[in-house]
């Protein structure tokens, strides 16, 4: 009964071992041969071998290196690991190995790429000698290949992205260059247009003057009126060209920033305006925050906004223009408020366009370039200009400069 049980158990172990869901080999510690004594079914399947063809054969005879892979280190690493197990009598876990497996001769006999994670562990007898070595492996080929291919994909993706980025950069660079040259062309175009338009205009103005000087006395009233209209329009066109010219020159101008006493700027502008136009507006200038900017350009902004406020309030009974400033964390804001004609907020977006006007020539004269110049100067300074108004209730223009 006892014997029978033992025998039964031994038999069961053989079957159990061979059926174990893992890749196992039992090796004889007969270095350098390491004769194969047993193999699990799963091992046979994974290595495309048959039990009858490997049992009793040396491990390295059955599994040689792939002769086509000159960098193969599978056999030498495995041998080293097995020898270390013999020597140290403790298990040795190997790093993942590339160890290619040969197909059966019937299927061509070529080698297939395989990657393994092997563990070699000794089985000791009572005398503490190595009786067997259990060689257990896991087939990690799919995992390794997947890793390799995703690494390759990432590499490819990187190369592709790099290429795309380079192209985009190149395109951007070309666009910038193109834009620069277009800008330059546009500037020199508008400059020469303004300048070339000047010559005939000078002639019109000049001949009209000569006519007036030499024949003014002969012409009747209507003749003189017509002559005046010619001169008036020549002058107006001259102003338009002047404004256009200064607008186009703004593009070229480099900013020269200095500290600006804004009170001085507004008072200076008012002084000049008082000399050139007659008006009865009361102008109140509060104490203003000092600013930083290009003196000439900010002065232009001040002159344009102040003269606008005076011009558009000139038809009310008691024209009043108030200048003040505010300071926030990020910007300095200057306000120019008047109680004049104002404007319809629906057209506020048109205020700052070139040649855009919200009033007729009969109401208020102007070329429609002044506020476009203001806007361009503010943009160059990284600031902005806005306007609020209501018809016949005055307007507030605000320009702001960033604090840096």
């Amino acid at each position, binding site marked *: 009964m006892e014997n029978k049980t033992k025998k039964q158990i031994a038999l069961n172990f053989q079957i159990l071992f061979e059926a174990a869901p893992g890749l196992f080999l039992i090796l004889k510690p007969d270095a350098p041969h390491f004769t194969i004594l047993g193999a699990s079914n799963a091992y046979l399947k994974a290595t495309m071998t048959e039990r009858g063809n490997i049992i009793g054969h040396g491990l390295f005879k059955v599994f040689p290196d792939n002769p086509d892979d000159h960098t193969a280190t599978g056999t030498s690493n495995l041998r080293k690991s097995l020898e270390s197990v013999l020597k140290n009598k403790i298990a040795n876990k190997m790093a993942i190995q590339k160890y290619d497996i040969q197909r059966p001769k019937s299927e061509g006999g070529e080698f297939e790429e395989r990657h393994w994670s092997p563990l070699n562990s000794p089985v000791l007898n009572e005398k503490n000698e190595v009786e067997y070595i259990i060689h257990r492996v896991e087939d990690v080929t799919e995992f390794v290949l997947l890793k390799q291919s995703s690494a390759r994909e990432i590499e490819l993706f990187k190369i592709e992205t790099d290429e795309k980025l380079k192209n985009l950069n190149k395109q951007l660079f070309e666009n910038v260059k193109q834009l620069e040259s277009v800008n330059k062309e546009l500037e020199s175009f508008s400059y020469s247009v303004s*300048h070339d338009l*000047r*010559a*005939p205009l*000078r*002639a019109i*103005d*000049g*001949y009209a*003057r000569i006519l007036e000087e030499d024949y003014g006395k002969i012409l009747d009233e209507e003749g003189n009126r017509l002559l005046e209209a010619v001169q008036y329009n020549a002058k107006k066109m001259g102003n338009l060209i002047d404004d256009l010219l200064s607008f186009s020159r703004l593009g070229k101008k480099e900013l020269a920033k200095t500290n600006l006493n804004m009170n001085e700027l507004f008072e200076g502008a008012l002084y000049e305006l008082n000399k050139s136009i007659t008006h009865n507006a009361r102008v109140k200038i509060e104490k203003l925050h000092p600013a930083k900017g290009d003196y000439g350009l900010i002065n232009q902004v001040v002159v344009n906004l102040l003269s606008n406020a005076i011009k558009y309030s000139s038809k009310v009974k008691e024209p009043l223009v108030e200048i003040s400033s505010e300071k926030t964390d990020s910007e300095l804001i200057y306000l120019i408020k008047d109680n004049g004609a104002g404007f319809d907020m629906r057209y506020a977006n048109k205020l700052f366009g070139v040649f855009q006007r919200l009033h007729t020539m009969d109401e208020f004269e102007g070329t429609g370039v002044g506020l476009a110049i203001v806007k361009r100067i503010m943009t160059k300074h990284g600031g902005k200009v806005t306007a609020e108004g209501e018809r016949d209730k005055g307007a507030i223009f605000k320009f702001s400069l960033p604090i840096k």
Partner: protein
Amino acid sequence: MDNIEVEVLLVEDNPSDAELTIRALKKNNLANKVHHVKDGDEALDFIFAKGNYTNRKIENAPKVILLDLKMPKVNGIEVLKVLKADERTKKIPVVVLTSSKEDPDIQECYQLGVNSYVVKPVHFDSFLKAVSDLGLYWLLVNQAPK
């Protein structure tokens, strides 16, 4: 032609600019001895007494030449080049009177030895003043060679 002493040689292809220039000179009584030629070719004929001007003498040089730059056939720069390269004419004061504010033009003219470079003012008033000022200066204030 040969007997008349020319004080100002005006080289200008634009008839309006020429007329306005002459008028400005006239206002200062400087126009009596102005001769107007319409391009660089004619200017060189006049100065070197060739073509229609064989009766002239090179020695009777004008006191000043007012030279436009943009002209058909022979332009102002070419005229300047010839004048300043020739021993007989290099001392004649040349004032470039032009619409060109282009820096390369200005550089080249001075390189060639121009005596003055004036950009025609765009406003008629300023134009009038500029022409009479430079007329007065070159004819009355400035001491000519010889």
